[in-house]
């Protein structure tokens, strides 16, 4: 960790590189940050809200899906990026040494910046609904948001590091990852509230540490939903375990991954 601190400028520059290179030669530039969650939410709104008519606990469907998407987007994007960090940067990593941890860290941070902007968009829409809809009842739980964001960052970092470390040797995991993240969306209460799941299957959904995080976020800002310290405590514990395991595996593999990647 001390080593990473010495290279903090590098982490900052990696974050910068991410942003600059992403939006160069695009007309809309950073506007894409808004378009992406909005389009996803509109799709969800039409498919799950209007066509399938899934319950949202009485919350206006649009803000319900936007809340889920904003949170899930941060987790899934930083997980996918961290999980491929060794393979996408192999050329650079095989030529020069710097603390390898700097790369996944920079990814989580640059996604955090992205999330903050998208969270701002969510807040705008939320304020609009707050005044126009009576179904929304924010609570003190919203104050837990920084904790939730931190948990998601750590979880995606830990899980991503496990994936990237193992992918250097077993490429099968890269296949698993792409559709695994898609499937995980359905194993997390993003497009449905936990309360619609039959009680005997709650444990299954809650085994996914992301579930309590998404639910808590919605309870905080929108009102109806499930909030339970026990569930959140489990998510925190699971996150710490995953992060620890990820760091250990990552550190073990970083020493010699250039031989196998």
């Amino acid at each position: 960790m001390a080593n990473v601190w010495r290279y903090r400028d590098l982490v900052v520059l990696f974050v910068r590189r991410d942003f600059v290179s992403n939006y160069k030669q695009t007309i809309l530039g950073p506007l894409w940050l808004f378009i992406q969650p909005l389009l996803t939410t509109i799709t969800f709104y039409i498919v799950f809200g209007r066509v399938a008519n899934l319950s949202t606990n009485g919350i206006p469907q649009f803000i319900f899906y936007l809340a889920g998407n904003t949170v899930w987007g941060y987790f899934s994007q930083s997980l996918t990026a961290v999980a491929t960090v060794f393979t996408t940067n192999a050329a650079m990593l095989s030529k020069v040494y710097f603390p390898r941890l700097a790369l996944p860290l920079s990814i989580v941070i640059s996604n955090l910046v992205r999330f903050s902007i998208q969270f701002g968009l969510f807040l705008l829409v939320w304020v609009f609904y707050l005044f126009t809809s009576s179904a929304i009842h924010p609570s003190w739980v919203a104050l837990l948001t920084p904790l939730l964001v931190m948990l998601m960052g750590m979880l995606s970092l830990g899980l991503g590091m496990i994936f990237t470390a193992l992918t250097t040797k077993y490429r099968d995991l890269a296949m698993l990852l792409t559709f695994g993240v898609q499937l995980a969306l359905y194993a997390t209460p993003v497009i449905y509230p936990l309360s619609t799941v039959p009680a005997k299957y709650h444990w299954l959904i809650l085994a996914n540490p992301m579930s309590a995080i998404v639910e808590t976020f919605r309870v905080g800002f929108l009102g109806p939903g499930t909030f339970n310290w026990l569930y959140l405590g489990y998510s925190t514990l699971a996150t710490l375990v995953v992060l620890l395991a990820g760091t250990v595996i990552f550190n073990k593999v970083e020493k010699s991954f250039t031989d196998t990647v």
Partner: protein
Amino acid sequence: MSDIAIKVEELGKQYRLGEIGTGTLAHDLNRWFAKLRGKEDPFAKVGEVNDRTSKGSSDYVWSLRDVSFEVKKGEVLGIVGRNGAGKSTLLKILSKVTSPTTGRIKVDGRIASLLEVGTGFHPELTGRENIFLNGAILGMTKTEIRSKFDEIVDFSGVERYIDTPVKRYSSGMYVRLAFAVSAFLEPEILIVDEVLAVGDAEFQKKCLGRMQDVSRNDGRTILFVSHNMAAISNLCTSCVFMRNGMLHNAGPTEQIIEEYISFGRQNAGEIAGSDIVYANKCPQAYFSNISILVGGEITSSIDIKKDVQVRLEYVVTVDDSLIYPSIHLLDNVGTVIFATFNGPSATVNVDENFGKPLKKGKYVSVLTIPGNFLNEKAYSISAFLVPLDVTQTSVVENALSFVVTDTGEMRKEFGGDWIGLLRPKMSWMTAKLN
């Protein structure tokens, strides 16, 4: 504090040959099981020499074996050896890009390595942004880079383009900028791998000069790998000679270079068949025999006054291939003295086969270097078969070396040290003008 900057002890590095990724799970389990029982790694065979030209008995290979040496502070150590001798592996381990399989390294000081210039350059970023990014990757802080920014830009000579994305740069500009960043690194120990093989001659000279500055004035420790013996002998105070993954010898630069160059001399003026090691191989033709003859006898020790014949025997495998056999004569530090080939316009005589497409079969081309032309020195030759697509040239570097001995032919008037890479007997004219 001792005066040792790097101490390497019994370093070894094992690699897996062939396709990585198939059957690794089985091997991993096997290895893990052996470890569990307290046995040795079943795939690490001890005592096998890494020679890329001959087939080994296992799928695993030792790129480095039992390498031990020390580098003193302020020393510039050259690392020489043929392709595949383990030089780059050694540098990779020293710069922590990969870890050794066995052995230990003790390092006193901060290391920066230049295994490649422009690592991490992003094509979309501007020159300015890339200087910062690349500098940070190489271990500089933002403040350090900022304080040297002007010098870096000045050294690279691309000031005008500094705010243009580097993807718009010419490859020369790109490399100049990349090297400039590296040149202003200030670690205690610098590891450099052949990066001087970039840019034009003027820039190369600038780079060498900069490295000399760094080592002499700033007293930094440098490890330098190159095939350019002139650069090595200019920069390095001592050298190690790597061969087949092992440390062959270590000592003062002069001595090691001499040994490295003359290593081919053991093949006594002739090399044939699978002993011929290609740096690149052409699909239409290959050498079957390369030899040096004086008066019809194969030799590597040559009398200065006698004609030397370099005989290239080669097999053309594709009908109607246009092949130009070519030879470079090199001095004892690897500088090319001359290059010659059998093109009709580049030879003294004419031969019906020169410059014509050849049918399949075995051919021989003989180059004659006249007597009283070479100096009393050690030389070596590189042999080439150049097809129409020159990128596919068969290249045998330092195929043979030989020593020319002065037997006194031109020594009636002058007995001192006769300088020069060559000593041609030429025509002179002296006349009285008044």
